[in-house]
């Protein structure tokens, strides 16, 4: 019988034992972070010491850490070890303000490689595989993070790097690549390049794609699997936590197991910062348990997700995160209800009569919040009854989703500016907002 787990004991550890391990590692992490110029004074003020940590619940005594904290303390303000112990740094590009830096000791690098190797093993990759990495090898953690992990796994690793699809094609053919690491949109683009060059992606030896670092839908995954004739697994990582290797889907493809021996997972209401009920949507908050150069406590990832309740048939006891539902910064509170644009977007996607672009406008009418939803009709139809039905059905479906009935406005195709950002998708004209 073939082995299913990279580290069976940890991956299938009973919850109670896993929590005990978390407590032990949290204590250790507090001990390390007491040395950091950032956390040291905070811990002192709050009386946080290793001895005072009794259970995982103690995590609520810690303040949240945000990206802004990382910016304000750029570059080394969150270092918990002397810089001579730091062997590498990764940095964000800082396109929206000051950059951020994440530091790694030798042990951090090894732990990270091990976690991602575990993730690779989880989706069936072995030392017999040829893993080609399409991520850039620079400050972005998708390059070196995958490289070290694949080597740790013992796979033949092809550090092809970003761009140059023709070269990727040549490597896939020449080296007999069996697995590809890429962002979902590149999986589609590269497949198109193969086709243009007379190579059917399904005829290559590639049987697995590790996809992540970009939001994508279940439909997109299915399409990728179809065009490649391969399995595609959603992989989650963020440089603040190390990089790729934080969570991955198992073969069940129903949620990503987050490696809880390395992280304490919380899902909180982005407004109140109180924990949501298990299974409800909220912001993912992570605490590192196995890092020493720069541990982070209750780091607000801004990613919206929920915990999938219940046990996974694969036998892993680590919690599963549902597919990410956008960013917590996108949240609006309308008539006291938390609403995320993605909830509306999901409904719009169900209608082939509509394009994927939309605009939400919020107004105050009297004392009430009013929501107007502009959607683009692919083609206006000269039929009042048809439009009325579409209008009614759409507003009913949206009400089912967000508990609020929007006023629907059909606008011509192409009249809503295309954008990813909240600024353009939501226009808040309300007073006191």
């Amino acid at each position, binding site marked *: 019988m073939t082995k299913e787990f990279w580290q069976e004991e940890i991956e299938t550890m009973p919850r109670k034992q896993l929590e005990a391990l978390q407590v032990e590692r949290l204590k250790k992490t507090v001990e390390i972070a007491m040395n950091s110029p950032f956390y040291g004074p905070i811990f002192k003020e709050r009386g946080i010491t290793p001895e005072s940590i009794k259970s995982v619940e103690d995590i609520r005594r810690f303040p949240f850490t945000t990206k802004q904290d990382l910016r304000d303390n750029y570059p080394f303000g969150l270092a918990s070890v002397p810089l001579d112990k730091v062997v590498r740094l990764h940095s964000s590009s800082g396109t929206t303000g000051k950059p951020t830096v994440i530091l790694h000791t030798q042990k951090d690098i090894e732990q990270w490689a091990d976690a991602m190797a575990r993730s690779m093993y989880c989706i069936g990759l072995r030392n017999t595989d040829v893993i080609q990495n399409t991520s850039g090898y620079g400050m972005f953690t998708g390059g070196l993070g995958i490289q070290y992990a694949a080597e740790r796994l013992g796979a033949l690793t092809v550090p092809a790097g970003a761009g140059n699809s023709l070269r990727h094609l040549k490597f896939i053919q020449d080296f007999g690549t069996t697995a590809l690491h890429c962002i979902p949109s590149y999986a589609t683009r590269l497949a198109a390049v193969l086709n243009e060059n007379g190579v059917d992606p399904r005829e290559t030896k590639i049987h697995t794609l590790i996809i992540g670092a970009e939001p994508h839908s279940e439909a997109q995954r299915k399409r990728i699997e179809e065009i490649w004739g391969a399995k595609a697994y959603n992989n989650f990582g963020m440089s603040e936590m190390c990089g790729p290797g934080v969570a991955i889907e198992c073969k069940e493809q129903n949620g990503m197991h987050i490696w809880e021996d390395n992280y304490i997972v919380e899902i909180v209401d982005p407004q109140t910062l109180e924990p949501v009920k298990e299974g409800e949507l909220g912001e993912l908050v992570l605490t590192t348990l196995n890092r020493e150069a720069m541990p982070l406590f209750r780091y607000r990832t801004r990613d919206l997700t929920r915990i999938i309740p219940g046990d996974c048939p694969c036998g892993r006891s680590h919690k599963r995160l549902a597919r990410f539902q956008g960013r917590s910064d996108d949240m609006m509170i309308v008539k006291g209800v938390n609403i995320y644009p993605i909830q509306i977007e999901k409904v719009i996607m169900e209608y082939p009569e509509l394009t994927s672009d939309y605009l939400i406008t919020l107004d105050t009418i009297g004392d009430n919040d009013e929501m107007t939803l502009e959607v683009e009709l692919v083609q206006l139809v000269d*039929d009042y009854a048809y*439009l009325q039905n579409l209008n009614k059905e759409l507003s009913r479906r949206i009400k089912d989703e967000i508990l609020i009935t929007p006023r*629907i406005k059909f*606008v*011509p195709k192409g009249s809503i500016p295309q954008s990813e950002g909240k600024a353009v998708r939501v226009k808040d004209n309300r007073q006191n907002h």
Partner: protein
Amino acid sequence: MFSIKRIKQLSVFLENKEGATAQVFNILKDAGISVSGASLSDTADYALMRMLVSDSQKAQQVLLANGINCVESVVIGYKLDSLEEVTVVLNELARKKFSINYMYITSLGSGNAHYMVFRLSETDKFFEQAARAEFVVEDFN
């Protein structure tokens, strides 16, 4: 002789807000497009205004450029010598099992003749039958 016009009509999507209808007429006027007929029934949240204009393609362009949704469709114009004819035509359409989506009466052309304008579910079938019956079918615009 029956005179039947094949008319390119513009259906304009109107929001229920003050000045929405006026805005459409102003945009068309500024673009040098003349309106020879229009029909607007009572509106709830929005309405479809049907319009007969001198240059349907150009009208579409300028309205869409102003973020006003519209679509062109082919409707049938039937020249009325008297209003009693409306009943005759409707009976005839019913006998031939055509169903009418909507209809309105407007004056058209230089002679200001009255036309009954209607849209059928099966416009193509209507024109086929009209041709077979050797009606004179002309393009209006």
